[in-house]
């Protein structure tokens, strides 16, 4: 009797549960959010056109199809007054076959001015960001070179400061670029020159001093770095081979104070998380302000030779190959 009861109960439970639960449930993998946009880009006071990439926060992942631009982008100069409405454009990126929305406006951002950028959706949801353009570099000049004792070098080293006069506090991409020429001997003993562009990172050699920054050029140390780079490129066979410098250009990218990555590094695996490295109100992403400042100068011949390099900025290279090359 008790078996029959159990069997009956089991069957009833089975059928009852089946009937009660036999409906379809939907699942929505995308939650609702009131955050409308993600912005990336920067204001450049040296450019007469400003551009910002705008990512609508959407439920569609695929960006291989063009989407209508459904936003109004305005910028307001909070320092000097005036407002500009930007123009949106669907840009195709052949690199990965996707489309993206870029908003642009034909104006020049003023040094030291603060701007508010606002992107508004038709439903009123808005993302905004306030950006202050860093101050201008008023002058750049090279200090006379110094000879210093460096025990790591076989002879006195040569250093030379390039001074950027400006009250800016942050920068990215400090680089010293050497445009070099080296002699090669080809088949049959025929000599020819090859040219290389070699960039050396200088962030570590930037120092804030007084009303600006010193870009401390270490010519003797760079000579070894350049030789290594040229050997790696198989431009020279021996690190002691002669290196002729045709040009030296110091470049920095001056930025506003907020343009500082978390933990001091631009690690894509860290920054990828929305909200990380972000200054956009009711949105994600980062909008900065910055400009590139470059300076070209010539180090006097004696110091160049002391650094085991020659300087010849004549385009076709009239400098004769001589014993002076490796003094």
């Amino acid at each position, binding site marked *: 009797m008790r*078996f029959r009861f*159990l*069997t009956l109960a*089991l*069957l009833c*439970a*089975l059928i009852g*549960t*089946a009937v009660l*639960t*036999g*409906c379809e*449930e*939907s*699942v929505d*993998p*995308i*939650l609702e*959010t009131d955050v409308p946009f*993600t912005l*990336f*880009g*920067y204001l*450049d006071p040296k450019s007469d056109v400003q*551009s*910002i*990439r705008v*990512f*609508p*926060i*959407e*439920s569609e*992942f*695929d*960006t291989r*199809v063009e989407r209508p631009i459904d936003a109004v982008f305005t910028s307001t100069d909070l320092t000097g007054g005036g407002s500009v409405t930007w123009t949106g454009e669907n840009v195709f*990126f052949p690199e*990965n076959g*996707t489309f*993206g929305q*870029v908003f642009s406006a034909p104006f020049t951002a003023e040094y030291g001015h603060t701007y508010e950028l606002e992107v508004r959706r038709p439903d009123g949801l808005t993302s905004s960001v306030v950006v202050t353009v860093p101050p201008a570099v008023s002058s750049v000049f090279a200090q006379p070179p110094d000879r210093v004792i460096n025990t790591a070098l076989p002879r006195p080293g040569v250093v030379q400061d390039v001074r950027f006069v400006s009250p800016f506090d942050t920068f*990215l*991409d400090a680089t010293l670029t050497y445009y070099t020429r080296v002699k090669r001997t080809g088949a049959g003993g025929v000599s020819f020159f090859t040219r290389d562009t070699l960039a050396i990172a200088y962030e570590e050699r930037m120092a804030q001093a007084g009303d600006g920054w010193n870009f401390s050029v270490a010519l003797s140390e760079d000579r070894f770095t350049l030789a290594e780079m040229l050997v790696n490129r198989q431009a020279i066979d021996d690190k002691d081979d002669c290196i002729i410098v045709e040009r030296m250009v110091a470049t920095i*990218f001056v930025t506003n104070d907020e343009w500082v990555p*978390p*933990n001091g590094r*631009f690690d*894509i*695996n*860290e*920054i*990828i*998380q*929305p909200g*990380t490295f972000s200054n956009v109100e009711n949105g*994600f*992403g980062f909008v*900065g302000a*910055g400009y*590139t400042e470059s300076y070209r100068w010539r180090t006097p011949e004696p110091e160049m030779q002391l650094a085991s390099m020659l300087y010849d900025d004549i385009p076709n290279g009239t400098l004769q190959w001589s014993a002076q090359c490796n003094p």
Partner: protein
Amino acid sequence: MLVLLAMGLVMPLTAWAQSGTIRGVVTDASDGQAMQGVNVLVLDGETLVTGVASNRDGFYTIPSVPVGTYTLRATFIGYQPFEATVTVSVGDVVTQAIALSPDEALLDEVVVEAQQSGATRVTAGQQTISPADIQALPAPDVTGDLVNYLTTLPGVVSTGDRGGQLFIRGGEPTQNLVLLDGMVVYQPFHVVGFYSAFPSDILNRADIYAGGFGSRYGGRMSSVLDVATRTGNKQKFTGAVAAAPFVSTLRVEGPIVEDRISVLTSVRQSLIEQTADPLVGRDLPFNFFDTFGKVHASLNETSQLALTGLFTTDRGTLVQEGGGTPAEEVRWENQAIGGRYVVLPKAYPILAEAMVSYSRLRTELGPSETPNRSSEISNFNVEAHATYYGSLADINMGFRMTSVSLQNRLGGAYQININEDEFAPEIGFYAEPEWRLGNGLRVRTGLVLQHYKQKPFPVFEPRLRLVWEGRGQQISAAFGRYHQELVGLNDKRDAASVFTAWTLAPADRVPESWQGILGYRFSLFDGLDLSVEGFYKELYNLSIPEWSAFPALTTRIQSADGTAYGADVRLEINQNKFYGYVNYGLSNVTYRSDQENFQLWFDLDELEFRPPHDRRHQVTMVGTYAFGPFDASVRWQFGAGLPFNQALGFDGLVLLDGPVDVNTDPGFRRVIYERPYNGVLPTYHRLDMSVERSFEFEYTTVKAQAGLINAYDRANLFYLDVFTLDRADQLPLVPTFGLEIALK
């Protein structure tokens, strides 16, 4: 531990010196196949002296039999008892072969090998599954399949009727060790979830260890599925052919040399791709094939040699072509081949076996000619095991050497290309005495010494298993430490993702688990059994894909720790014409990750989340009823919703590490997650039913079956791509019917 081992060695040897050993093999007289689980007793008159049960190869060894003349009696349900007179001298090893003849009077009686298998017959995580258990379930065709039974177990979470992935008691599919006659099968489950590489008609038995497994098994930390196949008929050729909308099957077996060498082959080809449209009015683009072959030789009364091979292929389109997105097809291919030699040495009460095998799995995702992702794993394995039968303890010991090769090619849309090749040798030794302490108490103490490539020093893995039986009750417990160097990574972008990339755990971060099981089983009254079993696992150094807003499958992995605990409750009813059971599984799995970025992103040192296989509740109800010439069976399954990554939406990122031109830099697409696995998918439930009838003819048995799969047409989610929002559901209501013709 060493002292215990020494005691285990010495004491049985002492006893052996004053007695003898009886051993041999038990076979079925009707077909020459080995019989396992046969009770072999030594009787002095009618007084029981000692006894054992035959093992999976049919061998039995009775050590420490006092000098004298005895009656050796073998009994098995459905067979006539076997008796022989055996005389044992000091130090003798007497070999006595046993052939059991079926009892014609009992042929029609339903025998479910009641003492060994059944829904509640779980002992410290271990359960034996017989072909009869499988046949009791409704299936989409007339032949049964092992996986159909596995998915009814309370601690087993499956991806449903597609996908072929099993999560056992908080573990992940790649943490399950699946063995077929000792060979590793990396992906034994077919893309259609009702099928695996193990059709029931080639099975002898399958042992599933849902944790707490013994020292013989290594290299995995969740579970072991140890499948043993039949040897094949050694006396006459026989076979069967079956057809159903889902699959067609051919099985042939017979003697190559009568009573000595047999062959068993099986071939299955799915038909669902061809039959789905007329049957259910929509395409079901799934295809699988498997073939199995085995040659078994009884070299003499004390040794056997078997050569086994398996080949499977699977292909399934998870997401159909549409909206400019190409079809997303997953494919995998298993190969396994191995040889196994088992011997009872002449002079000692020892069973020894040696095994050599090669296994390979290749998985691809994407278009068939140009897959976006592929992953390949292969191993060459050599192992040897020996069991010494003592008076107080049986001592198991052995070693295994494995060389594993891995190859990953990961690419595709929004994917960073990854190419990597790796090689990982593993070697391990173990010793595991099993003590018979009297009063129904057995204790097995094991110790494994294992070397992994990614560990600087060999690791020790203690194992313990304890079983007490008496007065219709059983208390069992198991405890152990486990490591796993090979890890499988899934794409967390997709709910129910099925593509797995195999890779090595990071150096010195080999995943590790400590786990314990405690179970209690008893009969409420005759025909109604109940078992309750709880488990707890601490998991360390789990290698899981790095959690990131980057929309890409990566082999960059993060370390996580985890905890899994839960309980299984099983109720089994066996009453004349009705057999049924209810299984309930409660589970709670939590991962804790201290990924470096979490501090920056969430201001947390450690993030706790539910992994995507954390199914909290699972219920299975199965009932079979015999009325007249018909057998009807019904199964209902329910599973609570699984966690998945719910997103706020998608945006992009341009890496502003300098003066970047946003007009030319495409940036990266990214997903805005709130927290890992913050969403829960809908519940899963389904009702299957079938009716079956057999017709006996002079030379053949014809079996006909009809049924319904997903009887109330529940739209259970199978696959959800959170990036494309593509959703694929599991099988709809499918009427099934099948026919099998078997030679007698």
